[in-house]
């Protein structure tokens, strides 16, 4: 099981507050401590996948920044094509393209059996709500690449909104799905029709607020 904890935007806001408190501190000119988080993240984005993990305990700044870059996922996929189980949460992918990129990368895992997508965005932080509106989970294209994961047996999707299209013809591209769990705001008749056609389905777990 591999759990991918993509750092949230919330955390990076916390970081910047911390940085403000540290502002008066002077760093030696020949110490990399002098780089701010953004520059540090940029530099470390050129590290290989293994080096990133090895570097996580260099300093708190390294820990904060070493996985900030979205290249992490492509690096992960390139190195671990045999991964069978992925759990994506704490999503900082707050733009649609990144979500497509995310699912494109996941689709390159031919052995993938279990997938948990926690696309629920932490609420409660007002400054974030603006940027979060840009997530267009109604976009039908977002999960299309996942149609290549024919080996999937367990799929969990936790999201506020999702397009009906996400499950169109799902019986054809996920013929082995035994376990399907959906946490969604609303579910439609049409979506249930598609789910009912999943040939291998044994367990269905749906939590939704609205049913129409």
């Amino acid at each position, binding site marked *: 099981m591999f759990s991918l904890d993509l750092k949230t935007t919330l955390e990076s806001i916390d970081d910047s507050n911390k940085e403000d408190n540290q502002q008066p501190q002077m760093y030696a000119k020949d110490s990399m401590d002098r780089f701010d988080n953004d*520059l540090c993240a940029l530099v*470390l984005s050129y*590290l*290989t996948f293994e080096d990133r993990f090895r*570097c996580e305990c260099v300093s708190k700044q390294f820990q904060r920044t070493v996985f900030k870059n979205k290249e992490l996922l492509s690096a992960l996929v390139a190195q671990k094509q045999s991964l069978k189980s992925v759990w994506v949460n704490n999503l900082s992918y707050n733009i649609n393209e990144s979500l497509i990129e995310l699912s494109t990368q996941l689709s390159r895992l031919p052995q993938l059996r279990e997938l948990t997508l926690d696309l629920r965005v932490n609420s409660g932080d007002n400054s974030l709500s603006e940027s979060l509106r840009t997530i267009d989970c109604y976009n039908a294209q977002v999960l299309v690449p996942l149609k290549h994961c024919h080996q999937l047996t367990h799929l969990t999707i936790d999201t506020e909104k999702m397009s009906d299209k996400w499950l169109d013809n799902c019986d054809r591209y996920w013929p082995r799905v035994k376990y399907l769990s959906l946490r969604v705001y609303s579910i439609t008749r049409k979506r249930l029709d598609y789910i009912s056609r999943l040939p291998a389905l044994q367990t269905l777990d749906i939590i939704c607020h609205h049913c129409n």
Partner: protein
Amino acid sequence: MADNADHIDGDDNEDVRAQQNLIKIKLKSSEGGIYECGLTAAKMSDLVKNMVESLGTDAVVTTEPIILGNEAVTDAALKKIIEWVEFHWDDPPVDHDFEDEKDRRNEELSHWDKQFIDVDDQALLFDVIAAANYMDIKGLVEVGAKHICSKIRGKSCQEVREMLKITNDFTAEEEDAIHKENAWIYAKD
């Protein structure tokens, strides 16, 4: 000449770029040193490019130097940066296509860039990278980043700290916890 320069601003034509690079503008470091640089080369810095575009080429060529106020832009760093842009100004423009970007990120540095960035004085190295970042010269920041990452490659946390003079602000317990979390990466599949 100056009239001409304004007229041809923004043209990507190679000859025009070469011609424009004959126009010299002045850049001023945070330490007060003033250095000449070809216009096309200087415009590899998005910061300088935006200034030139808002002030107009005439003003930049004939009047005061462009002031680079960030403390990382020391005399020594600015000299290095000018050396880099004067070597690279006629590089083909960067293609923002995603696959190309991935290739570029993974590409090894050229021999010239390796020699350029391999400076013994680490304070100067960090000045050059921070100054290039401030001046928004993406190509040069990338050279610096690749250089640092190639030095980090395969080293332990402690070796990285010593090399880059990074303060360890973890407690022993915190560090142990991270090691445990990451143990799987070293395990065989």
